[in-house]
């Protein structure tokens, strides 16, 4: 069953890291609906230094999103990926 999912990834703030992420989307054929990138300095959270936060909206099956999450977590510069409930979900 296809539905919308939101993934939030924290990446080390290094050159080329967005390229590494987008390379995974492209190569593994994930269709991204929306991406938002923000340097965590701008989030005012002192626990998140030298990181970039990427929010990804993707539509697909649960299995596909799990696979995407694991592929992203495999990137060395990706520190953490979590899924947050999409709108309309509990």
């Amino acid at each position, binding site marked *: 069953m296809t539905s919308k999912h939101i993934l939030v990834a924290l990446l080390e703030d290094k050159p080329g890291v967005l390229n590494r992420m987008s390379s995974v989307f492209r190569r593994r054929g994930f269709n991204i609906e929306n991406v938002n990138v923000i340097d965590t300095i701008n989030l005012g959270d002192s626990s998140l230094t030298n990181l970039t936060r990427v929010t990804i909206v993707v539509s697909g099956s649960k299995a596909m999103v799990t696979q995407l999450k694991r592929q992203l977590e495999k990137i*060395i510069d990706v520190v953490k990926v979590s899924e947050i409930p999409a709108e309309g979900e509990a």
Partner: protein
Amino acid sequence: MKMTGAQIVWESLLKEEVEVVFGFPGGAIIPIYDTLPEYPQMRHVLVRHEQGAAHAADGYARATGKVGVCMATSGPGATNLVTGITNAYLDSVPMVAITAQVARSVIGTDAFQEVDTTGITLPITKHNYLVLDTASLARVLKESFHLARTGRPGPVLVDIPRDVLAEATEYSYPEEVNLPGYKPVLEGHAAQVKRAAKMINEAERPLILAGRGVAIAGAHRELRELAEAGEIPVVTTLLGIGSFPESHDLSFGMPGMHGAAYANLAVDGADLIIAVGMRFDDRLTGRLSGFAPRAKVIHIDIDPAEIGKNVRVDVPIVGDARQVLGAVVKQILPRGHSEWLKQLGQWRDEHPLSVRECGGLLPQYVIRQIYEATGGGAIVVTGVGQHQMWAAQHCCYDRPNSLISSGGLGTMGFGLPASVGVKVGCPDDVVWCIDGDGSFQMTMQELGTIAQEKLGVKIAIINNGYLGMVRQWQGLFYERRYVATPLSGPDFVQIAAAYGIPGLRVTRREGVVPAIERALGEDGPFLIDFVVEPEEDVYPMVPPGAALAEVIEEPVRGEVAV
């Protein structure tokens, strides 16, 4: 202490206990080579093509379990490494590739011999680095070796601009790595281990499916303990061959496209598959919807992204194969599966891997004789094609890493340069390169490396005058239209002779054993050109798109539906 970037490269390699580097120089990398004489303890093997450097490092790494190191100059040097790095990536081989880059000031200007090496290798490395200041070089190298050898191993590339190599900085090698995004899970989740053990204890027809992860983790002992404790039969993937002794009563060979029929029937009949350190490659599974239709699946792998990627898994366990198997074994109740083993034994008796009667010289016969003559003690390295499958089928591998072959990428040309690395890493082992006439011609210039380094590699060319595996497909699925697969070769014995390497041509059965004995009697390298039946096909075969149970054992040329 102050050191140049080039010195830091060698110092760091020594810290990582690197004893040999396979490489080829060029303009940008001269600074590294220029300082090599300061490190007489370091061996450098000069290859004839950078692809050979990567394959040699790969073969060295598979045979020794250590990280293989290769190096090349910027531009064409780096691009020539690409096939070899990809090969290592797909087979999870620990490797560090060092490339030189143009000076920082001209990066991005299409300077002479500038290519975007980190861009090109991004999808074929576990990780890569462009080092933009000399001060970070030691840290980057420390991280590279750590990444290459831990977790799921793989190649890491370090691209270093030539002025970074020339610049001097204060050097100290870091003790620790700090990689917040990299924390491989080694220990299996206790509750999952318990579930797996329960499932194994309850299974009537369990089957272990072991892959290269077993050899990487050094989990042979634990694998054997599990198999013996629960009386569980074992099959292996191509790269898992040798991780469980093939002469063991519980061994039932390799399933897959060219696996033994009995191994495929075993997968088909099992009610539980215990998959260890493998990734359900399509050449192994056949049509996914028909794979192990009666079985529940336990999947043990260190890479979470492999779990559930191709096959639905009932009990996933992320962890190091050795640790997980060790934990599972403790909870296994000793029990027998005599009915199941009887069934498997019967399938093996009814569907043996045999060699047909033939007056001519059959490739399978040649390979069996090589095996017999070495008493199974040799390390066999192969090219890609029919000969590769025959080498997997017709020798009995009892030792881990005794078959070294390109699995995931299926890279023709792997055999000869990989043998260079294997022989350098294991000088006391007998190393046989069983190669195809097509594969050999892709990298045969490495005979030069073998001659220069005086490496006693024994080379057996299975010369069928064809790109045989492709011809086989044309025969089966394209009505025998042999387009672009007949292949002429040079006189391989003369080619070897030109490099000062002795050799023989064998065209008849009677000549096989004496030639092999002669090769084994030589201290140095030796080449045998076995001119075999040109149109012999590899069987059994699971046609593409078919399930494993639909394995074809006999040639039915032109009658197989795709």
